[in-house]
């Protein structure tokens, strides 16, 4: 059992305590609440230096202090406060930094509402428990045998065939029917390699459809995309030792993961707003009547400052872009504004919540949009960004890499 300390305020009164426990239990985690006495609460929050008005937040601080001071031994920490509570957001952020600066314990933060259900927390809990309990899998640095990695994403399905530490086949298709899309992707990946499914040593699945596909193929590895993408990114970027940050702006959600020697030690995951996702760029490309592949080069020629974009929202933001076009604005400027808007929003909502470690490895389908890479670089003040070859297949590569050594199909 992975012991996950719950450092939170308001979960009981929001009625979501049970959901948090359910999510943790699903992935072999056990929620523990650091027990402390009253004098320690006063002592802790004074030592911490944050004079919170809410006594529950003082308790939150004291629980974090108990972890840092080693009064309680835990494997991971889940920090949660109510959505829209300003004081909660302040304490959540400072407590996260405090634990990260003083321990090596992985931390996940979340702001919840009364509608938060266990399945929303699944990916975070799974990544948290994987980081702790499956470190040995994540330590793999070289692919062996013949393995297939399948990443069933919200927008596209990616399939990668690997042999002897090389990518020998790739497949990419829009996600429609989950299994149908995998079949199309796999057919592409096997094409001209001379291999078929029967020759494989192992199959690894990740992404939203991982469980369905994993069951169908009896996959040796079924793994959430935070750990898999982090591993795939450092592998492809040839940066398996040392520190790095992995940024994946996906079709439906975004992931920012910090890694140390190839093992993720912290992450944030967005997904509240489509305006901060690849979907926004997809919509912009459609409105500009250009292929998504051409949006990046188009944006590189434009200047986002020439476009009035008042909203990050996928509906109202696109409306602003349409207004600019109607007023005679150029397609280049609109493309640049869309890239800048996504980069800025990813920064505001996620990147500032994590301590960015250079280099930043940008992956996923959106990493092929050069205008977005430029915008992310500008937003982060000229940070070193690596976009490795095959970056769009990141999850599939990670899955094919991690499953090697686990599959025994040919024995």
């Amino acid at each position, binding site marked *: 059992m992975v012991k996950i300390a719950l450092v939170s305020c308001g979960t009981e009164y929001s009625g979501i305590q049970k959901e948090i426990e359910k999510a943790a239990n699903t992935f072999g985690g056990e929620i523990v609440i650091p027990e402390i006495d009253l004098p320690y609460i006063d002592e802790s929050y004074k030592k*911490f*230096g*944050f*004079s*919170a*008005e809410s006594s529950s937040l003082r308790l939150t601080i004291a629980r974090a202090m108990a972890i840092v001071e080693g009064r309680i031994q835990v494997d991971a920490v889940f920090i949660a406060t109510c*959505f*829209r509570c*300003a*004081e909660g*957001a*302040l304490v*959540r*952020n*400072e407590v996260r930094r405090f634990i990260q600066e003083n321990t090596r314990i992985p931390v996940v933060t979340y*702001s919840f509402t009364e509608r938060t259900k266990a399945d929303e927390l699944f990916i975070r809990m799974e990544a948290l428990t994987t980081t702790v309990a499956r470190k040995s899998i994540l330590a793999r640095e070289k692919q062996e045998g013949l393995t297939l990695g399948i990443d069933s994403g919200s927008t596209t399905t990616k399939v990668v065939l690997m042999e002897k530490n090389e990518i020998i086949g790739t497949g990419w298709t829009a996600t429609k029917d989950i299994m149908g899309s995998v079949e199309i992707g796999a057919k592409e990946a096997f094409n001209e390699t001379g291999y078929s499914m029967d020759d494989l040593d192992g199959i690894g699945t990740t992404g939203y459809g991982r469980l369905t596909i994993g069951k169908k193929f009896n996959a040796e590895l079924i793994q959430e995309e935070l750990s898999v993408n982090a591993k795939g990114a450092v592998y492809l970027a040839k940066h398996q030792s040392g520190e790095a940050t992995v940024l994946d702006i996906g079709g439906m959600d975004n992931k920012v993961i910090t890694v140390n020697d190839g093992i993720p030690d912290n992450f944030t995951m967005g997904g509240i707003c489509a305006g901060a996702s690849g979907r926004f760029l997809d919509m912009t490309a459609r409105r500009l009547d250009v292929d998504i592949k051409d949006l990046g080069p188009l944006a590189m020629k434009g200047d986002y400052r020439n476009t009035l974009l008042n909203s990050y929202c996928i509906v109202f933001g696109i409306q602003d872009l349409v207004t600019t076009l109607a007023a005679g604005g150029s397609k280049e400027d609109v493309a640049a504004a869309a890239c800048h808007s996504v980069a800025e929003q990813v*920064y*505001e*909502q996620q990147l*500032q*919540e994590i301590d960015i470690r250079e280099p930043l490895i940008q992956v996923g389908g959106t990493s092929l949009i050069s205008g977005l890479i430029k915008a992310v670089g500008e937003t982060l003040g000229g940070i070193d960004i690596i976009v490795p070859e095959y970056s769009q297949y990141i999850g599939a590569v990670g899955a094919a890499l991690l499953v090697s050594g686990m599959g025994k199909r040919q024995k």
Partner: protein
Amino acid sequence: MVKVAIFPPNSLILADLIERKGHESLALQKAVRKKVIDPEIDSPPMNISEEDPIKGLKYAAIEVPSGVRGRMSIIGPLIDEAEAAIIIDKAPFGFGCIGCARTNELSTFYMRKRGVPTLELIYPNNRDETIDMVNKINTFLDGLNNKEE
């Protein structure tokens, strides 16, 4: 001369006490003045524009209201510069106030976290306590001189 951050960050009395001892007070007014005299910005009364609360993200997450982040975009860099700090708790409005309890919590937290010599006092309620407060502040400021030497 030592740069001293103060709380409340716009307390004229604290700023005056610091300047009298030959130190530099990191008072809010100086930072606001720089913004107000900048002819490039036109966002009266304080020339805080849409960009400022975004700059405040360095100190507070996006979920924190824009008013807190806007205030922190000015107060935060002052604290980052501080070589010493004086915090007066439970002061009335007239002594200095930035009108936001959350900003108070965050800015005092950052002052403490900075790890520079910090004097924390409760606002006085009578003449004797007032004299005592001023004496303690003066002693603290003199001590900063000694450390410099």
